């Protein structure tokens, strides 16, 4: 049935794992490269994106019977852009320090392909509650990859976890060095590639067998 819990669970699992936006749909890579140098920025970005994905899904899905199909992309973008601007304003008013760190990337949620992709592929064809859950699911799927990448990049690139040094000093004394490339964009490419490979080589998730 369409309203029972297992139905929502299905949407969640699909968004978070089976059709993970970054690892399976390969969307949102640009911001996954940009904000994953540190855990703190990756986490706030994840929360902001999940909220925008969920509420844009909800609003667009509620309007789906009234949106004229020839201007639907424009309407979708209007909804998304408005939500992002409001999110940015709220961050500036209540979490000023973090909003300063994220600077332009909150604004760039507008151009994140995951949001428009879900609006176009899911919210336009499903009811508001499903679309809301789908937004959360895809947001969480994106967050999972983002946080994993940020964890590895911050650990290997700066020897830190949430800004605290975690690599003991004696390792540095013995000649251990932070990997400079992890701080740069190519480091994120390597890690995302490896994560996608890892996910797809786990038993039961390979795309080829589908």
């Amino acid at each position, binding site marked *: 049935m369409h309203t029972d819990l297992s139905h929502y669970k299905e949407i969640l699992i699909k968004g978070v794992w089976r059709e993970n936006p970054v690892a399976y749909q390969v969307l949102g890579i640009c911001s996954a490269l940009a904000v994953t140098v540190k855990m703190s920025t990756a986490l706030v970005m994840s929360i902001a994106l999940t909220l925008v994905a969920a509420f844009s899904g909800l609003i667009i899905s509620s309007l789906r019977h009234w949106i004229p199909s020839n201007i639907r992309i424009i309407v979708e973008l209007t909804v998304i852009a408005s939500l992002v601007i409001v999110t940015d304003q*709220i961050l500036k008013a209540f979490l*000023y320090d973090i909003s*300063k760190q994220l*600077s*332009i990337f909150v604004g760039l949620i507008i151009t994140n392909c995951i949001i428009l992709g879900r609006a176009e592929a899911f919210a336009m064809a499903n009811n508001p509650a499903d679309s809301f859950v789908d937004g959360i699911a895809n947001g969480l799927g994106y967050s999972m990859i983002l946080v994993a990448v940020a964890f590895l990049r911050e650990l290997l690139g700066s020897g830190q976890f949430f800004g605290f040094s975690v690599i003991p000093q004696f390792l540095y004394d013995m000649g251990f060095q932070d990997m400079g490339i992890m701080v740069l964009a190519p480091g994120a490419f390597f890690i995302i590639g490896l994560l996608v490979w890892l996910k797809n080589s786990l038993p039961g998730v390979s795309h080829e067998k589908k």
Partner: protein
Amino acid sequence: MSDKKSSFKKSRIYVVLFALVTALVFSVLITSAATMLKERQLENMALDKKTNLLEAAGLVPEDKKPTPEDIKQIYDAHIREVHVDPRGRIVETPAGNSLQLYLIHTDQKVQGYIVPISTRGLWGKIHGYLAFEQDGETVAGFSVYSHSETPGLGGEIESNWFQENFEGKKILNASNQLVSVGIAKGKVENLPEKLQDHYVDGISGATLTGRYLSEGLEETLTKYESVSVIFRQKKGSQTNLETILDE
């Protein structure tokens, strides 16, 4: 009825009407969010500016996070904003060519001064403060309050490890020439010894941000040289708040 409705929904009028209503609804939403939160945002910005001035001057207590009231109180007790003419003398009313700076004082005695920095960065303007000791050549601190550099790369200019590097650097070389403070490519310890006093550690992956910031610092310090000269001449002798920058 439903036929009529669905044919209306396919008409151009409906498309235009829908677009207009959508635009209206969402612009009202954005405008009201921006207006309602504006006061809070401006407050945050003003507070952030004061915090950064105090950070540059090294006046923020390290052990605990200061409350907004603490910041306001320390600011009022230790910082005074002044404008000076190009010769470095205080003017009452800021004119077109006057420079803005902040005096750091304790009990009416001047401890140093803070120069506002405004330079281009990689993606946008970098705004910050550079504080000096009262000898007019030793950097007391540096802070950044607004920039659009890449988080984690150029954005590191606002991190503590980068800013703390500036403390104790000299803007004059051995023959008393202005050399400014530059951002090194890589670590300062790899530079020749006579340059080490004038450079801070660079940020890996942010060569351009460092270069623009170095250029901006040099430009600003050249402009404020007249003020620094007065401080150097009056080293240790004249430190009264009211008269330090008078004739």
